[in-house]
């Protein structure tokens, strides 16, 4: 019997093999980020490029200089509306490309640009509908979060020590994060089903995904959670290193380290997508495995005559 590859490692391998997807998305993220920051760079440049005061930001990072910049009437550091626009544009881009990404991972083949964008467009409006469902599902989660906030305030108000509220906050955060991860996993699988089975009806995709997640919760959630954990850990360690150990004057090194954090963060999300697609493909082949071939039973000739 052929041993099935473990989806956790296989998913990582899939992202690596199809890294064109990763670099493509990262490039868009980077370009939109540049567009979003361009205005600030220009405005800050007119103040800092010819001023000796800028050295307080280069050798160390003097916060009073930053605050001084923020207090200027020309607002060189304040993000303009274009900043938010480019962020929203990236979100729309991700929504658009999700279909193509899942298709690429599910088929585990290199999709040329044409078929890739075809898959993106084919599934786009389905995923828009899914996004609406997602927002609806988040409403009760939001209400629970608000309720937890009120309860936190009450505990903090009444407890002599600050720690009961701190522990409550930690516990509530864990629960709410768990719920959010479950919801995200559910919708991820719905997206995979929509692509893999060409399911047009999103409520049906959601129902099927809910059943799938419920029946295989342990393996699916563990798959999702592990990758999230790794993503957060590597991101956090990289940012800590950048913040605390790099020379304040460093430019190239700092840029490399910060962008590595961004790439890894993105890669971990794609790793989840790839692992989910792989998991579903393996699940599909297990569910729809053809019946084993058997030889027809030989019937004695006199029995056949007796039947006639």
């Amino acid at each position, binding site marked *: 019997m052929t041993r099935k590859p473990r989806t956790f490692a296989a998913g990582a391998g899939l992202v690596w093999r199809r890294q064109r997807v990763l670099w493509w998305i990262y490039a868009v993220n*980077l370009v939109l980020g540049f567009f979003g920051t361009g205005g*600030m760079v220009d405005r*800050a*440049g007119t103040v800092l490029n010819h001023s000796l005061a800028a050295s307080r*930001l280069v050798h160390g990072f003097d916060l009073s200089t930053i605050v001084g910049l923020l*207090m200027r009437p020309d607002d060189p550091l304040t993000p303009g509306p274009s900043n938010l626009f480019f962020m929203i544009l990236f979100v729309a881009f991700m929504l658009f490309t999700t279909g193509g990404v899942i298709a690429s991972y599910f088929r585990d083949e290199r999709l040329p640009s044409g078929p890739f964008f075809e898959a993106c467009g084919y599934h786009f409006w389905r995923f828009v509908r899914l996004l609406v469902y997602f927002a609806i599902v988040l409403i009760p989660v939001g209400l629970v979060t608000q309720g937890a906030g009120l309860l936190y305030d009450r505990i903090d108000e009444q407890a002599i020590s600050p720690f009961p509220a701190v522990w409550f906050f930690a516990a509530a955060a864990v629960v709410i994060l768990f719920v959010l991860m479950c919801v995200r996993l559910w919708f991820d699988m719905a997206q995979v089903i929509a692509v893999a089975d060409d399911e047009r009806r999103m409520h049906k995709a959601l129902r099927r995904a809910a059943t799938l997640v419920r029946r295989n919760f342990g393996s699916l959630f563990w798959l999702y959670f592990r990758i999230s954990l790794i993503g957060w850990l590597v991101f956090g360690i990289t940012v800590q290193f950048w913040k605390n150990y790099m020379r304040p004057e460093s*430019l190239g090194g700092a840029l490399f380290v910060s962008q590595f954090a961004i790439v890894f963060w993105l890669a971990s999300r794609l790793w989840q997508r790839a692992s989910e697609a792989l998991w579903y493909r393996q699940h599909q082949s297990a569910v729809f495995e053809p019946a084993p071939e058997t030889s027809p039973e030989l019937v004695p000739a006199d029995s056949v005559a007796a039947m006639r």
Partner: protein
Amino acid sequence: MRHLGWAAFLVGTLALGGTFGGGHASNTIQAQVQAPAPAATTAASPAAGSGHQPLSTRIVAYNIDAKLDAAKHTITASETLTYRNLTGQPQQTFPFHLYLNAFQPQSTFMTEVRLSGTRGNDPNSGWEPKHYGSIKVNKLEVEGVGDLTGKMEFIQPDDRNTNDRTVFQVTLPKPVAPGASVQFRIAFDDQLPEVVERTGYKRDFIMAGQWFPKVGVWWKNAWNCHQFHATTEFFADFGTFDVKLTLPQNEVTGASADLVSNINNPDGTKTLTYHSEDVHDFSWTASPSFTAVEDEWTGSAGTVKIHMLMSPGNISSAARYMTALKGSLRLFDEWYGPYPYDRITVVDPPHGGSDAGGMEYPTLITADTSWNMPKGLLVPEVVVEHEFGHQYWYGMVATNEFEEAWLDEGINSYTEAKVMDELYGKKTSVLNFPFAQMGNSDQQRLSYLSRPDTDPVTRFAWQFYGSNSYGGVTYGKTATLLLTLEKIIGEDTMRRALHTYFMRYRFTHPTGEDFLKTIEEVSGKNLRWYFDQAVYGTNILDYEILKAHSDRLNWYEKKSAFGDSSKDKDQVYRTSVSVHRKGDFVFPVDIEIKFTDGQTVLEHWDGRDRWIRYEYVRNAKIKSAEIDPQHQVLLDRDLFNNSYVEEEDPHAVHKLSHIWLFANEWLAQLLSWIT
């Protein structure tokens, strides 16, 4: 008093351990914890000052007997106030402060808070019944005269708001002769609010400040007894306090006085007797959850007992408080004068009770921290230093905080910058992380720049444009103008001036002019030109390099396309540097011009005209021009236009853009989680 706007900097981390539920004073801190005071009579210390020469002219003697109802947060008390008439005139009418009545919705205080907020409250802060506070005089008798309760009359000398009951006056049938004394006996009830502004309760914690009727001050030939406003503090005469506090036995207490005796009563309460001399206020605190930390410090005037009361969850800040306090004691002793009291109490408010934090009373201060205060955020240190500094500027040099708030808050903010920079580093005395730093002097300057041109520092405290202007100008501008004054007279001279001011005016009520004249006297300079602009005016100081450029003298000759290095050395340039006075504050400035051949020229401009141009003809081009190269003129509104570098250096912008790019990318990816 200290603005408590540090919450944005707090970083949440999980901590293991800590106490749950109510703690008692049996919590130990190494070997220095004070267990609850033992039963029966205990003479904790001899009456402070007994047999000592008075340090002040003691005009008032308060004798108060008070009982706390911890469950209802009420205090029932009787006060005997003996007032010595040293005004030189017969006095028949006496005004009193009733500060706790400010915590009523129609009071002047609350009306002003609704308009522009205050230190702990923005205009839209919630108001619930638990926030009500009051002080009610049930009976007022005068020795030898009788019951004058019916003669009490609420007055509103500042704004005629008849709903405001923070000042009353009483007129005696006959005047009190000069040199004679009058004794008032006042029975009153306090309802403490949940801590809103300095005073009140939070769960089982009580901070009782401004809780008793206080007589006004005869000053500048008139009674000075203002209403309590959103941005005012207090003003009172020196004297003695003998206070008996009866409260539950499980309360751990602190007060701005020496503990004389501690007697357990059969009904489960205890009566603490306190005594203090040469102070102008009495405050106290109590909580069964305090952990006491004891220490001492010895200075030029003797040993000072340090009594620190820590709230649950904050014990990790005790060492930080102690280090800052001892450092402040030492530097104030060395620089300005001796600390003459034998005690100092530091109160750490509980979580949620920060409105009681960052406050000063004679020999008692309230601090501020949180259970997860990062080491690199020096909030506990700054608050302790600032409130200790008030022992000098307000506690001993008892200026009128209503009318000249800059003399205590501003001078104190200046000495805060000096002490914090000395103890924790000039660039790291507020924030000290590997990735970000900030110094106290810079923080004072930024505070000033938040509202630089609406009010002079000399404005009466309640007449500022708003609480932001009051804070920015009273604290930040005063500190910054004194830091800038160091450039004119020198740091050492400034220190000597403050030392002279302290030694001359401690235990009195000096004015702003007393302070300014002292500086002029010690420096030997006429500084009116500076004071008129910086102290009495709202002039803005801003000098800029308008233009700095080098041009070839033989500009009309074409330059060789390939250059000729042998001729470059002989190339002569005309360099011109234009400096512009952008603001309306005239101040002499230095301008440092550097050339590419390594030469430096230092010019000095009186700054009076609107602009000046310097021209040089030499074999080098300009490299940079900088106004105030020593960075001493902190009053300058814009430090970015103070310099010009000929060769563009985008290093800082690249660094900022990398951070901004990272934030944009990550936030965009985070948002796309919804897809």
